[in-house]
C-alpha cells in the first residue's frame, strides 16, 4: 500500500484507539470497586450467572456502588466460578476468589466491599505481588504457564471491542497493513509457527502456497470445529477473546490476498457463535473489518458458518464439503485446499489457536517467538487437561515442557492419593502413554514418536482405577460412529475393532484376539484416506503396546485389573465390617439390589446389581464394608436374596 494509504490507516486507527483508551481510563479511574466475573461456558455451567445476580442484588441491598465487569475464561476450570475483586480503597491488591457461590458473593459484598475485610479464608491469591496477601503467581499453576494466545483471556470483556483495543488489540493488523504481504508471510515463516490443529504443518509455508496461486477470489477459513471429546480450548478462546482470532484472520487474509473469510464453529457452542458474530459486527461498525479496512484498499468480509457436529469435519476437505452443503466426506489430496478449496477457490484453513498466535508473533517478532519452546516446535501449546487431575482446566505452556511437570507440578497431580496410570493425548486420534513417558517433552515430534500425537490438545489423565481396554473401547466407539463411511477399512475395520474390544471388556475374548487387534489396526491405518481413519487405531495400538498385561488379563483370565469393566466385576459387603442396621447402601441403590440378611447385615443380589458403585460411595468410611472384585465369581456366597425383592422390581 502507498505511504498515503499508511497515513490514512494510522489516522483512522488512532481515533479508535483514543476512544478505547478513554473508555478504559474511565473504567479504571472510577472511584468504585470493580468485580470481574469469568463468564465463559464453563463458568456459567458452574453457576456464574447466579453469582453475578447475587452480586448485583447484594450491591443494591447494601447500597454499595461497584462496577461488574464480565470477562471470559481464565482457564482455571477447577476453580469456577472465578471472581476477581479490585477494591483499591481497602488497601488490598486485586484479589482472586475461587468457587464463588451466590452465598459467598453476598458475603464478599457485605464484608469486603462494605467493611473492608477480604475474608482471608476464601482468598485464592492476589493477582499481583504485594506484601499483604500471597500472590497467585506463587502457585506453579500460574507461574509455569506462558500465555501468548490466552494472554488476554479472562482479562477483557469479549463483548466489547474497545476492551480489546485498549489492551493493544488490532494494532498488529495496522502494522501488517503497512507491510508488504510477502513480508508478513516471511515473518510468520521465520517464526516457525506450526498449525495447532494437530498435524503441525508450517503455517508460513501454507500461506506462501496460497499466495503463489494466481486467482482473484481466495478464502480464509478459521477451523473451530473442535470435535474431540474432552478438548475445549478453541471454544474458550472464541468465548474469551474473539477479536484476537479475527485479527489473525484479517492478517492472514491480507497476506494471502483473500477478501472473504469464514469462521467454521460448532453449533454445539452457542455462546461462542454468539460472541464471534457480535465481535464481527462490532469490528465492521468501526471499520476494522468489511469494505476498505481502516480506510485502506483492503476489503475483508468475515462470515460465521455453524458446523453441525461431525467429528470428521475437522479434516479440511470434509469441512469444505460441509460448507458446500454436502455430507462432510474428505476427498483425495492433491489438489490441496490452498490450490482448490471451497467452491474450487484457493482456501487457507487454519485452526483457531494458529490464527490467534499470529498477532503476538507479528507484534513481538519472529525471533522472540522462536525463543519460546523448542527448535522444531516453537511457541506455546494449549492443553485442556481433564480427567483424574486436581487442577483441571486450560493450560498454556511453552513447547518442550515435560508431561511430568505439566501433570504433577502445574496441575497438582492425581486426586485422592491414587496412582498415575496413563495419559491420553490428542483425543480419539491420539494415544495412551504410561508413566515411562512422563519425562517426554511435549512437542509435535516427540509425541508422534511416542505413538501419541499433539492433536488439538485434549489431554485426559487417568489414575489406577481406569481400565485401558475400556478406554480404548470408548475411543473406538467414538471414531466408529464418526467414520464418514467412505473408506472400507475405516467403515468396516473400525466396526470389527470395536467388536473385539467389546467382547474383551465383557470377558468373552477369543483366542488370538490381541494379535487380530494389532493386524487389523495396521490395516485400517494403511487403508484409510483421511486423518480420522489413519489415526483411529492409535488408542488401541498404544494401549496394547504399553498395557499389554491388562489386555491379557481380560482375554485369558476374564479379569479386569482396574475393576472398571462392569461385566467383569462384582460388589459384595464384607460382613465383618458391615454395621448392623445401617441402611446407607440400601437406600441409595437405584435398583434395590441391596437386601438385608438374616442377621441384619447387607448382601447384594447379583442378578439385580447394575454395578454403579453408589453403595461404595454411600458406605460410611468408618465401616468401609463394600468390596469390589474381578472376576465376579470371587464374590463369597452370603445367602439367598429374598424373592420379594425381584417381584417388586418387575
Amino acid at each position: 500500500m502507498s505511504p498515503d494509504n499508511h497515513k490514512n490507516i494510522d489516522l483512522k486507527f488512532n481515533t479508535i484507539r483514543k476512544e478505547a483508551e478513554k473508555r478504559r481510563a474511565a473504567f479504571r479511574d472510577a472511584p468504585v470497586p470493580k468485580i470481574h466475573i469469568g463468564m465463559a461456558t464453563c463458568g456459567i455451567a458452574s453457576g456464574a450467572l447466579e453469582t453475578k445476580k447475587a452480586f448485583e442484588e447484594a450491591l443494591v441491598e447494601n447500597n454499595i456502588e461497584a462496577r461488574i465487569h464480565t470477562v471470559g475464561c481464565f482457564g482455571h476450570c477447577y476453580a469456577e466460578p472465578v471472581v476477581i475483586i479490585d477494591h483499591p480503597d481497602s488497601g488490598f491488591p486485586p484479589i482472586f476468589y475461587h468457587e464463588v457461590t451466590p452465598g459467598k458473593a453476598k458475603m464478599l459484598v457485605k464484608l469486603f466491599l462494605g467493611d473492608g475485610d477480604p475474608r482471608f479464608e476464601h482468598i485464592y491469591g492476589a493477582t499481583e505481588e504485594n506484601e499483604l496477601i500471597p500472590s497467585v503467581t506463587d502457585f506453579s499453576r500460574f507461574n509455569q504457564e506462558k500465555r501468548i494466545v490466552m494472554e488476554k483471556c479472562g482479562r477483557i470483556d469479549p463483548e466489547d471491542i474497545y476492551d480489546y483495543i485498549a489492551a493493544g488489540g488490532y494494532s498488529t493488523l495496522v502494522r501488517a497493513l503497512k507491510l508488504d504481504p510477502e513480508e508478513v508471510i516471511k515473518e510468520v515463516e521465520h517464526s516457525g509457527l506450526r498449525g495447532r490443529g494437530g498435524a503441525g504443518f508450517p503455517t508460513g509455508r501454507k500461506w506462501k502456497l496460497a499466495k503463489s496461486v494466481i486467482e482473484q477470489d481466495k478464502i480464509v477459513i478459521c477451523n473451530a470445529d473442535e470435535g474431540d471429546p474432552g478438548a475445549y480450548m478453541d471454544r474458550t478462546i472464541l468465548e474469551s477473546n474473539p477479536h484476537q482470532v479475527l485479527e489473525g484472520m484479517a492478517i492472514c487474509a491480507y497476506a494471502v490476498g483473500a477478501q472473504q473469510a469464514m469462521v467454521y464453529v460448532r453449533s454445539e457452542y452457542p455462546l461462542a457463535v454468539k460472541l464471534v458474530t457480535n465481535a464481527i459486527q462490532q469490528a465492521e461498525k468501526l471499520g476494522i473489518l468489511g469494505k476498505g479496512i481502516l480506510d485502506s484498499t483492503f476489503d475483508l468480509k468475515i462470515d460465521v458458518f455453524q458446523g453441525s457436529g461431525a467429528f470428521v469435519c475437522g479434516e479440511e476437505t470434509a469441512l469444505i464439503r460441509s460448507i458446500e452443503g454436502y455430507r462432510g466426506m474428505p476427498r483425495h489430496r492433491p489438489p490441496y485446499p490452498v490450490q482448490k478449496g471451497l467452491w474450487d477457490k484457493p482456501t487457507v484453513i487454519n485452526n483457531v489457536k494458529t490464527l490467534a498466535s499470529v498477532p503476538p508473533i507479528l507484534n513481538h517478532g519472529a525471533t522472540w517467538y522462536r525463543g519460546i519452546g523448542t527448535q522444531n516446535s516453537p511457541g506455546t501449546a494449549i492443553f485442556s487437561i481433564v480427567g483424574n487431575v486436581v487442577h483441571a482446566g486450560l493450560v498454556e505452556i511453552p513447547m518442550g515442557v515435560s508431561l511430568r511437570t505439566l501433570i504433577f507440578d502445574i496441575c497438582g497431580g492425581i486426586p485422592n492419593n491414587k496412582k498415575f496410570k496413563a495419559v491420553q493425548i490428542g483425543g480419539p486420534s491420539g494415544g495412551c502413554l504410561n508413566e515411562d513417558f512422563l519425562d517426554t517433552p511435549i512437542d509435535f515430534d516427540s509425541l508422534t514418536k511416542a505413538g501419541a500425537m499433539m492433536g488439538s490438545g485434549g489431554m485426559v489423565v487417568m489414575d489406577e482405577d481406569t481400565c485401558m481396554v475400556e478406554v480404548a473401547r470408548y475411543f473406538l466407539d467414538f471414531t466408529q460412529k464418526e467414520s464418514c463411511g467412505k473408506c472400507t477399512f475405516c467403515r468396516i475395520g473400525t466396526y470389527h475393532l470395536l467388536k473385539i474390544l467389546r467382547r474383551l471388556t465383557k470377558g468373552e475374548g477369543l483366542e488370538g484376539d490381541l494379535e487380530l487387534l494389532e493386524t487389523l489396526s495396521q490395516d485400517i491405518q494403511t487403508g484409510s484416506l483421511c486423518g480420522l481413519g489413519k489415526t483411529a487405531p492409535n488408542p488401541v495400538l498404544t494401549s496394547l503396546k504399553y498395557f499389554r498385561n491388562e489386555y491379557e488379563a481380560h482375554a485369558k483370565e476374564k479379569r479386569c485389573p482396574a475393576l472398571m469393566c462392569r461385566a467383569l466385576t462384582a460388589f459384595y459387603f464384607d460382613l465383618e465390617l458391615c454395621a448392623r442396621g445401617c441402611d446407607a447402601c440400601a437406600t441409595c441403590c437405584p435398583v434395590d439390589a441391596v437386601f438385608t440378611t438374616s442377621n441384619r447385615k447387607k448382601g447384594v443380589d447379583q442378578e439385580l446389581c447394575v454395578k454403579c458403585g453408589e453403595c461404595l460411595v454411600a458406605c460410611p468410611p468408618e465401616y468401609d464394608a463394600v468390596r469390589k472384585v474381578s472376576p465376579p465369581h470371587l464374590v463369597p456366597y452370603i445367602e439367598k436374596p429374598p424373592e420379594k425383592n425381584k417381584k417388586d422390581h418387575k
Partner: protein
Amino acid sequence: MNQELTEEEKDTLKHVAIKLETFEKHRGNLIPILQMVQNNLSYLPSEALKIVAQHLGILESEVYGVATFYNQFRFHPPGKYPIKVCLGTACHVRAGDIILENFERKLEIPEGQTTPDRKFSIERVACVGCCALAPVAIIDETVHGHMAPSKVEGLILRIKLQEEMEERENKQHEPGQS
C-alpha cells in the same frame, strides 16, 4: 419419522416455509436452512425436509442424506425437558455411562427417544466442554455437574413435582370452576 404433526407444529411449519424464502436457492445454504428449521420446530419432520428440498430444487433423498450425516439434526421431537448426558472422555472416565443408564432406567426409554407423554427425552452428547465438572448432564438448559446415580432420581422427581405444582396453580386460577 412418521409421527403426526401437532396443530402447533403445523403452524410453525407454515412460518418456516415463509422464512425459507429469505434464503437464496444455493446448495451451500442447505445446512443453515436445516439449522433454521430445527431451531423453529426443535426437530426435522419429514414434511419440513420436503419443503426444503423443493425450495433448493434438489432431491429429498439428498436433503435426508445430509441431515442424517450430522449429529446435530434430530428426527424425533424432543421432550419438554430434554436430557443430554455428556459422554466425553472426562465424563466417561468418571462413569458418565452409568448416569446415562440410570436416566434410561428411570424414564424407561433408550437414549435417542422421547417418553410417550413427550415430557422427557434422552440424548447422549460428546462433550459439552465442562470437563472439570464431570460427569455432566444437561436438563433443559441447566448444567448439572458432578452427577451421581442417586442424583438422577432426585432430578426427575423435582421436575415432576414442579409440574404438578404448576398444574395445581393453573387449576386454582381458572375461573368458573369449583
